């Protein structure tokens, strides 16, 4: 996204802080995410990336700051509410529904967006989403696993399913926490392909990642965090050459 200046951000994060007792995990972090971009978030372990995500996505209440989604203040809303507002996410650790099949996982991931609690009791079991579910299954190359329970899939397959679940409801922006973490090489290429393909379809992402090669390749802009603060925000090249970043994180 070269013309960020002209577009309105889909998500504005301003001055988010969060302390746990005496530890200031996140200190006054601000950034914007523009529609259609992939924003990478990197930084050393314990620098507050996941805490920042959790503050934005309602798992934690930030001490200060504001989160604005498409111009609406959504600070401090519950995860349930934010999911319905259009924030999708995956977690650092795998979070799929082990005892359910792949299609059931995907349906579960989107059913809260259809009708009300009570109207859903009287809807078809597949909510008329058969084609959509099959499309996603195909897109994520999970077609040979439709009858398997998610708990019996390999780690990489669960990772793909997890990502697909975060996307099922057509969110405004999807937060991925280490999508490449613990994934083997061939599966890593798969994760990257899916990410770029979906971004090509116009989906916006914010991605925490430790795999530098991966994130430098996919992200349009990169937010570097250190000790709870923003160290810098720029393109992959700018970040790679920045002395502060090299010192704090990348090494030589």
């Amino acid at each position, binding site marked *: 996204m070269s013309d960020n200046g002209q577009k309105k951000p889909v998500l504005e994060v301003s001055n988010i802080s969060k302390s746990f007792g005496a530890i200031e995990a996140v200190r006054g972090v601000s950034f914007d995410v523009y529609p259609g971009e992939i924003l990478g978030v990197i930084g050393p372990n314990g620098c507050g990336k996941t805490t920042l995500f959790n503050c934005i*996505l309602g*798992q934690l209440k930030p001490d200060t700051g504001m989160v604005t989604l498409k111009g609406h203040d959504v600070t401090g809303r*519950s*995860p*349930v509410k934010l*999911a*319905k507002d259009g924030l999708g*996410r995956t*977690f650092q650790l795998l*979070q*799929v*529904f*082990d*005892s*359910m*099949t792949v*299609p*059931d996982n995907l*349906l*579960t*991931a*989107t*059913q*809260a*967006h*259809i009708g009300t*609690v009570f109207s*859903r*009791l*009287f*809807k078809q*079991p*597949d*909510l008329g989403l*058969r084609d959509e*579910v*099959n499309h996603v*299954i*195909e897109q994520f190359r999970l*077609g*040979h696993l*439709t*009858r*398997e*329970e998610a708990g*019996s899939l390999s780690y990489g397959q669960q990772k793909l399913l997890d990502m697909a*679940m975060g996307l099922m*409801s057509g969110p405004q922006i999807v937060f991925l926490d280490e999508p490449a973490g613990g994934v083997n090489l061939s599966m890593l290429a798969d994760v990257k392909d899916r990410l770029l393909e979906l971004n090509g379809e116009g989906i916006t992402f914010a991605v925490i990642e430790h795999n530098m090669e991966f994130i430098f390749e996919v992200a349009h802009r990169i937010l570097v965090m250190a000790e709870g603060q923003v160290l810098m925000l720029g393109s992959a090249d700018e970040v790679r050459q920045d002395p502060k970043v090299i010192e704090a994180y990348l090494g030589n």
Partner: protein
Amino acid sequence: MTEQTSEINQHIQGAALVEDTSSPILRLTGRAVLVGVVITLLLAPMSLSGYGLFLLSLWAVTTIAVQGLNLTMGYAGKISLAQASFMGIGAYTSTLLIQGAGMNFWLGLVIATLVCTAIGALIGFPALRVQGHYLAFVTLGFNELVILVLRNEDWLTGGPLGILDIARPSIFGFSLFEPARFYYFCMVMLALVSLAMWYMIRSPWGRAFKALRDNPFRAESLGLSTTTYTLLAFAIGSGLAGIAGAMLAPLVEFIDPQSFGLQRSLIFLLMVMVGGRGTLAGPFIGVFFVILLPEWLRFTEEYYLIIFSIFVILLIIFFPQGVAGIGPYLQKRFSGDQKNEAS
């Protein structure tokens, strides 16, 4: 490559979207057993004595209550040791309304069910905060509380002696006094409740309950309110115990506080575990083993409890998913081995 793709497409099209991981053989066996059981139950009054019919009626009534617990615990993953007290609340409420206030049987049953549903929803609130063992203790405490009220409020409940001579109802002027008639009434009610349960579990609600059990954290991030579904699981589960209670009173023709004590709640829990938690067939099987098996093992006399205990221990060790889980477990193992050989 194209061959592979078409194969994948075939899989996709052939796959049932609704939870159905079973093989065709397993499904056929299941259906055959179901038909066999239904026919046997329909013909049972022709060959069974009054006592036999009483036991089968008790099986049906108990299965309704255990289906409720299976929803709360098996599907939604919230342990409850208060199911018997809800059966008690249902039994006392309906009896007092029908016997005491002269209300119509059906109205009494409906009100008893609604009362249990409402109190069940209230009991769901602690479950929003505490889990596992702590929730077990909260619900256990509630069960004891209900028993204390039933025992001490003599003026209303008849105290420790309970209420005697509860009449069996008539339906549209058709008396259910005869054991065979009451038996059919129980079977019809069991069928209706089971159909409703089957419908709910395969609806989006069923997935939401399972999501709540598997990973409440993830469910929230996908917009599924764990609050709503926890309260629903408790409310509906307790409501079913209410229906069962309102049927138990005229079946046994007398109620007392002790029948709804903690021990009964623990037995309900055992029934869910033995039958197979989180399966539709589980409660039927679990209640069968705990209520009917003792009758057939009578020839073993005092050894019965030893035999039954050994059976339960072996089952929990080898098939922790319960009797209903044995088929899918074997199938998974079998197909799992095939996969390993192939790779």
